[in-house]
């Protein structure tokens, strides 16, 4: 395996060089475990782009040791907030500088259109890095009134330490930024395991980490299989905290491993089956746009996908026709084509999974409105699929599909739809469309989800917290709350006036 893969960029004469080793201590190195390299695929063509090193347990140990050393010497409490801020801003500048080539690489490995990767994924990621750069020198403790004559009580917000971060394949660059930025802003060091399906941009971003000037060991990147690297990280005795984004089923394993090993802190960003509600007073044209976005953005591969649509009975058929037209308008195709609004699903595995659900929907008797037909050409393409008249007990209504497959149900009253919406073990997001302000308030208060969109969907902001209730997760990302996930508070009780009488 070559140490640098040169990935050809379609419709051009250029290639993008991607280091294929493991990134430890600011260097790309071969594996100590000598596992089978990871084959990295282009989901639009089903072809192999290149191979990258697959990290094993020895490599994880090495990365953790590097992160620990950095935490004790050049990072952690040894670096000022001001310096952390400066480096994060520099990293943001570099990501912005390289946005075009990073977007092309993201498209080749993940399938999402180049323009979406550049303007949304990378644009938001650059802003995310800058947002947390701003926080780095503003992590404040408190002075707390106790007894003014004798004692001062203060809290120090300290970085937790070495953090394992495991990120998914649906937003490789953006998930990287969401994890890396707050951890570094607070002063933690990182062992990052990008998804084995989409490791390329994480490796490329590691080069920028060096160029920005982060000391060695502060960020380490080790692509590996979940069952190897993910397991090693979650059970590692010298990792102080693990942050995971991915499926609920894997999230459970991570939390279990954390509990059984060293009780490392855990934050989880898991799945969802988010309800999207359209009331009769809504602007139907707009609601249809948002509903289409809600299930088709990123080809439905979004933890917050509005995958259960509930439409009020008085506007049901009208809205369905409107939505069907909208859904068909999205061009799903080659990400290098300017017209394309959505790409293929990321892998064969996902392709098979999503089609499994489509077949189940047909079998359980849902009304197929659009889609449901496989393409005959190469690429893991799934066209927009809408099932109507669904029942709560159907598989396509209960389980997360993670593809462009929408289930639509009907309701008549507000109470009824709130009950339907909340009838899930998930609680990540929800959306509602209504022109009745009182209704907007009531329903947003009643829905059990960490993010509620009112007359909108899918739009997040770096300074607004995001995370799940119930089995959609533990902890929050984005906003100032994300910092709390990487902080361990120390309380100092400083006596200057009390003399202890002994015995009591």
């Amino acid at each position, binding site marked *: 395996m070559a140490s640098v893969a040169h990935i050809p960029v379609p419709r051009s004469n250029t290639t993008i060089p991607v280091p294929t080793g493991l990134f430890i201590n600011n260097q790309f190195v071969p594996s100590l475990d000598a596992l089978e390299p990871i084959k990295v695929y282009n989901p639009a063509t089903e072809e192999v782009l290149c191979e990258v090193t697959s990290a094993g347990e020895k490599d994880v140990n090495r990365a953790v040791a590097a992160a620990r050393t950095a935490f004790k010497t050049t990072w952690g409490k040894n670096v000022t*907030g*001001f310096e952390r*801020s400066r480096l994060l801003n520099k990293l943001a500048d570099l990501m912005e500088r390289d946005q075009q080539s990073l977007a092309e690489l993201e498209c080749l490995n993940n399938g999402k259109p180049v323009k979406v990767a550049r303007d949304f994924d990378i644009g938001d990621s650059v802003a995310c890095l*800058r947002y947390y750069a*701003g926080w780095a*020198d*503003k992590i404040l403790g408190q002075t707390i009134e106790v007894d003014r004559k004798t004692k001062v009580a203060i809290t120090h917000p300290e970085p937790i330490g070495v953090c394992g971060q495991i990120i998914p394949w649906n937003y490789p660059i953006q998930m990287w930024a969401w994890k890396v930025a707050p951890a570094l802003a607070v002063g933690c060091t990182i062992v990052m395991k990008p998804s084995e399906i989409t490791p390329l941009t994480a490796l490329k971003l590691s080069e920028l980490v060096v160029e920005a000037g982060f000391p060695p060991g502060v960020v380490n990147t080790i692509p590996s299989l979940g069952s190897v690297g993910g397991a090693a990280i979650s059970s590692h005795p010298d990792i102080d905290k693990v942050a995971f984004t991915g499926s609920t089923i894997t999230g459970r394993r991570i939390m279990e491993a954390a509990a059984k090993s060293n009780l490392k802190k855990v934050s989880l960003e898991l799945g969802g089956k988010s309800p999207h509600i359209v009331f009769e007073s809504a602007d139907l044209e707009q609601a249809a746009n948002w509903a289409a976005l809600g299930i088709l953005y990123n080809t439905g591969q979004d933890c917050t996908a509005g995958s259960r649509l509930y439409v009020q009975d008085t506007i049901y058929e009208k809205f369905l026709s409107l939505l069907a037209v909208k859904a068909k308008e999205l061009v799903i195709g080659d990400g290098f084509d300017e017209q394309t609004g959505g790409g293929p699903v990321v892998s064969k595995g996902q392709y098979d999974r999503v089609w499994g659900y489509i077949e189940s929907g047909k079998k359980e008797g849902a009304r197929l409105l659009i889609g449901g037909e496989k393409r005959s050409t190469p690429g893991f393409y799934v066209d927009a699929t809408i099932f109507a008249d669904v029942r709560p007990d159907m598989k396509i209504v209960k389980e997360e599909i993670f593809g462009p497959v929408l289930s639509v149900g009907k309701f008549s009253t507000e109470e009824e739809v709130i009950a339907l919406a909340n009838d899930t073990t998930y609680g990540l997001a929800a959306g509602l469309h209504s022109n009745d302000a009182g209704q907007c308030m009531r329903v947003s208060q009643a829905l059990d989800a960490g993010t509620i969109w009112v007359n909108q969907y899918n739009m997040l902001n770096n*300074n607004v917290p995001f995370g799940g209730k119930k089995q959609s997760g533990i902890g929050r990302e984005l906003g100032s709350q994300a910092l709390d996930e990487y902080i361990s508070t120390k309380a100092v009780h*400083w006596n*200057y006036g009390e003399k202890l009488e002994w015995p009591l």
Partner: protein
Amino acid sequence: MTTTWEHEFNTPVFKGKVSFPTGVFVDGKFSAGSTGKTIDVINPTNGKVITKIAEATVDDVDRAVKSARKAFDTVWGLNYPGSERGKLLMKLADLLEENQDEFAAIEALDNGKTFSWAKAADLGMSIGTFRYFGGWAGKSHGKVIETTEDKLAYTRHEPIGVCGQIIPWNFPLMMMAWKLGPALATGNTVVIKPSEFTPLTALRMASLIKQAGFPDGVVNVVVGYGHTVGAAIAEHMEIEKVAFTGSTLVGRKVMEAAAKTNLKKVTLELGGKSPNIIFNDADLDKAVNWSAHGIFWNHGQACCAGSRIFVQSGIYDEFLKRFTAKADSLRLGDPFATDSYQGPQVSQIQYDRIMSYINSGKEEGATVHLGGERHGEEGYWIKPTIFTDTKPNMRIVQEEIFGPVGVVIKFENEADVIKQANDTVYGLAAAVFSQDINRAIETAHKLHAGTAWINCVNQLHPEVPFGGYKQSGIGRELGEYALDSYTNIKAVHVNLGHTI
């Protein structure tokens, strides 16, 4: 037609050509003032004119306020997201950093402080301050507040609007950064009056602000006299907040004017007569070094200068001996010489003021232990001066001198020195030196001052708030607290079901 200034620096520490417009900067453009008159900018090393800059007038202030109001309503305020405001402030910091040597040179020429201090302290802090507040933009959150189930109550943190800012001549660039940082981060627009004594770095900043990409009208720079432009700002019916740094005397006038006109919000950063308390168990050499820094840094022209040095009797003689030697060793010289510590005072007026205090000290019977006189033939140098054998009611003990003049006072016990230290109308800062950290903290807590330094003096960070108790000021600058001065809080009550 705007005035411009071109100058060739050819000094041991900086060589280079500067050239920039020095007109009245309103709505993104430089122009002559409405009367066409100019102000002479004087070089304090020799009293000669460096250049003439456009004099802004009351009419120019009106123009600036209109421009700032329009910008606030259309392209700034809540129309411009916090993350973008932060980006511009970061860009400004980057530009300032790229040009830091040039700025340090201009500051040294205009103010008289040495190039090396200007670069290390003034530039470092200014760049850091812009970056710090750039990071706050978009992070000033309101709260959602629990009341009853049939109501949603929350607060919005909104920018105030058009803010007037009046800054002094002792740290011209740094004071500009302290003012612009929080005001712009929170979304306000600004009409700022730099001191007519030291306008050059502020005017250079105006070009940088334009270069960084701030929309026209967001920052307007009007250099004019206190009794014209300063008063116009304090009295203006459409300026909703005024921030002033300067003498307590003028601070009162600003607050009075605000009260008489539109009750605009007022924050003040005024004078001080800060005590520096040195206990017997202090680390003597360190205390000496810090005390010298406390009173002689920036030629004593610092609001927080530790100008009353209280030394416990057990170490008084030894302290005085070492402190005098230290003060005597400070090199006075050309701001651009590599080995100068102290340049001239900023102006003839200040020189005269300080010399008059020195004379009053002599007349009232204090001992001139060191200095007490002019240095050199031209310019405004005053030798580091130490008075001893003072009485509490002497003018040199009560009043702010704002020069390199310290009074050293012997004390016996803790209770007595705390009483003396607090016996002042001021309350800006205080310092305590003791190796017994418990006692140091206890003492610091008892001093009536907005900043208490323990085993150090004159330490400032963009992240840590700074401001005065009593007649040293109202409000805080730096740190998160600075944002409060530029924020209007609106409480929103959304009724969800309560009928009446």
